[in-house]
């Protein structure tokens, strides 16, 4: 992606209309599919952590007390739209927040069940071909730093979801694709991509 190494974590928002659970389809919006300017939608597999209690201004050393557990998150992104918005200094919002652009699951593994969340294999395959294969040890900002940084700005609430970023290998999805995303010790989520139907 040729992005620069950030000095601080870069964060953006996905709204809750994006969330879908394991085995539910990712709906490819027609307005993207039918528009040559926008017809590229990418997968991004990420380790997510879930907040256990309201927190603000948390120190790095205390961050673990506020984590309920871990899950798998797919940050589905309308890439051409994101790039075109970014090039004219517009917010990263619409490209990230179409309905179903945030698959999550298949379960929340409790905090205590994963001794080291920074040493988990993470991978994504499309129709059985691996596209992303990495390990959470390569994350630039570790979970306690991320939680501490975000909580300087925002109060986090019980159940809030923080997705920690994706490794290399992002690429396009198409209607008909079967996506499987796995993280060691958590499990797998599977989603079929379907084209949005006419009203």
């Amino acid at each position: 992606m040729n992005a620069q190494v950030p000095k601080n974590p870069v964060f953006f928002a996905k709204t809750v209309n994006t969330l879908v659970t394991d085995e539910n389809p990712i709906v490819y919006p027609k307005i993207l599919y039918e528009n040559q300017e926008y017809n590229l939608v990418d997968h991004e597999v990420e380790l997510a952590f879930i907040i256990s209690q309201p927190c603000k201004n948390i120190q790095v050393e205390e961050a673990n007390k506020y984590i309920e557990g871990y899950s798998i998150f797919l940050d589905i992104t309308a890439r051409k739209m994101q790039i075109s918005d970014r090039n004219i200094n517009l917010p990263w919002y619409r490209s990230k927040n179409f309905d179903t652009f945030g698959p999550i699951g298949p379960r929340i593994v409790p905090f205590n069940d994963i001794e080291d969340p920074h040493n988990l294999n993470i991978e994504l395959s499309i129709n059985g071909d691996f596209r992303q294969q990495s390990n959470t040890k390569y994350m630039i900002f570790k979970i306690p730093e991320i939680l501490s940084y975000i909580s300087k700005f925002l109060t986090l609430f019980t159940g809030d979801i923080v997705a920690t970023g994706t490794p290399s290998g992002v690429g396009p999805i198409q209607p008909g694709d079967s996506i499987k995303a796995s993280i060691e010790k958590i499990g797998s989520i599977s989603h079929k991509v379907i084209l949005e139907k006419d009203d």
Partner: protein
Amino acid sequence: MRIGTRTINPTKIICIGTNYMDHIEETGLDVPKEPVLFPKTLNCLISDNEPIIYPKFLFNQRKYNRVDYEVELAFIIKDKCKHVPMDDTFNHILGYTVFNDITARKMQAKDIVSKLPWFRSKSFDTFGPIGPRIALTDEIQDPHNLNIELKLNGETKQFSNTKNLLFKIPKLMEYITTMFTLEPGDIIATGTPSGIGSIQPGDLIEATIEKIGTLTNKVVMEGE
């Protein structure tokens, strides 16, 4: 949350950037071809008469120590909807209220220049005062002809009329719901007119929209 006598449970706040011609001229930004959307998260919401907290983290850093008011007309979604045609818009709106899109301006400007997301500058706790009440759609026949004003310590800083909105409510509704499902209680803030400027701890902000009322909030320093 309660707004006046009504309780709403929003799942998201969607704001429209650069939507008044007078504000576009003031900022020197391009006239957008489509509505510019960005989110605020729910931690920013506060009611009438609750304090806006000026984060120390911003106050103590010269590169970030400017925080601005932005008065806006907001509408509240009545029912779950997607792909709403323009002529069906008002069937999906519960009513209107006043919203103040508090913004860490220097942080936003810096993030924009670096092509980073507009998120952290917009979503500090208490950066989204809303109220004092929801005026139902049958109380306001024409939401595009309302005076909108913001006073800082009694002095008028923003004064315009919602007729100057570049994208009107039906267009916004159609555009947003082409992409996203809206849920009951969701808040759409329609953008701010010209006259934006900075706030300081100790300031009193009164944001008024004709036929809705006045949203009043004091600015306090974090931890005080």
